[in-house]
């Protein structure tokens, strides 16, 4: 009984700057494990966003580009079109993907660009200090919605997985979370499936990862896990939303 567990080769030795309990660390590690398992480190290019993960390139041991805010899917498109043999993924947060970058992700998905997007949904703008995001929940207090998100004024939170699943072009869209080990195992399976589709040159994939931001939510990491389970998961429901098989 028992098993070994070590740092994946695709993850660097750098201590991350992420807050205690931040789910970025888990997601980074899962991506690195998948890259190791598929043996693609030598031909992978990651694209870092503007957000807490802007320094993601310090935490991986393969080629990386840094995109302007929201533009990672456009950069990924550029790379994938000129070097289809490279494995390309974008790593984006709420503001990057669902606000300023909405045009880019919709069109990349609609064109069926064969790269993978890891979308980290933690309902706030983390790096800039906790402002409201398109994914902020009704009534959720943030630094730019101090009285709580007023849906009459500003609408309901945006469900990216559902939105992109409405496109006709085949793709793989799944929503997962990483707040507990049982969820983490499933999230890794989804990420591996997405990269495998890319290896086959099959379709665009997006894995939306419901994540925590303890610091900007004003909660401890464990309280953040509970809030995610109680409030976020009923709205941002986990599951596979679109598959190229169907």
């Amino acid at each position, binding site marked *: 009984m*028992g098993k*070994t567990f*070590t740092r994946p080769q695709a993850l660097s030795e750098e201590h991350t700057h992420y807050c205690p*309990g931040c789910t970025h660390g888990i997601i980074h590690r899962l991506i690195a494990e998948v890259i190791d398992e598929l043996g693609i480190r030598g031909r992978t290019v990651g694209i870092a966003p503007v957000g807490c993960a802007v320094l993601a390139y310090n935490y991986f041991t393969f080629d990386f580009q840094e995109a302007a805010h929201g533009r990672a899917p456009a950069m990924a498109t550029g790379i994938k079109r000129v070097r289809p043999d490279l494995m390309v993924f974008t790593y984006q947060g709420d503001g990057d993907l669902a606000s300023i970058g909405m045009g880019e992700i919709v069109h990349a998905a609609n064109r069926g660009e064969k790269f993978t997007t890891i979308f980290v949904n933690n309902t706030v703008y983390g790096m800039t200090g906790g402002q409201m995001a398109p994914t902020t929940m009704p009534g959720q207090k943030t630094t730019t919605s101090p009285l709580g998100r007023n849906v009459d004024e500003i609408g309901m939170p945006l469900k990216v997985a559902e939105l992109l699943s409405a496109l006709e072009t085949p793709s793989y869209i799944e929503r997962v979370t990483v707040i507990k*080990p049982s969820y983490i195992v499933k999230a890794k399976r989804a990420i591996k499936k997405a990269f495998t589709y890319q290896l086959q040159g099959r379709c665009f994939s997006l894995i939306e990862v419901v994540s925590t931001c*303890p610091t900007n939510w004003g909660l401890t990491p*464990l309280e953040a896990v509970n809030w995610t389970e109680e409030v976020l998961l009923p709205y941002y429901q986990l599951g596979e939303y679109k598959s190229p098989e169907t």
Partner: protein
Amino acid sequence: MNYVYSIDRDRCKGCGLCVAACPKKVLQISAEINIKGYFPVYQAQPENCIFCSTCCIMCPDVAITITEATLEMANPA
């Protein structure tokens, strides 16, 4: 199979997620701060550890590793 369980004290940020995740309640937050000013985790009940690696899977910082014990470790020459 013998395993070596290792916590990188200075990498741990004391988030406590592993403490909650451990099925055997092995881990606790220690009272001594590390080099970064966090209170890192430690094995309070190491004898109960079953090396399931659930704590490793939970940890955002890869602060916990489990490796195979080698003969050299058991019998240093």
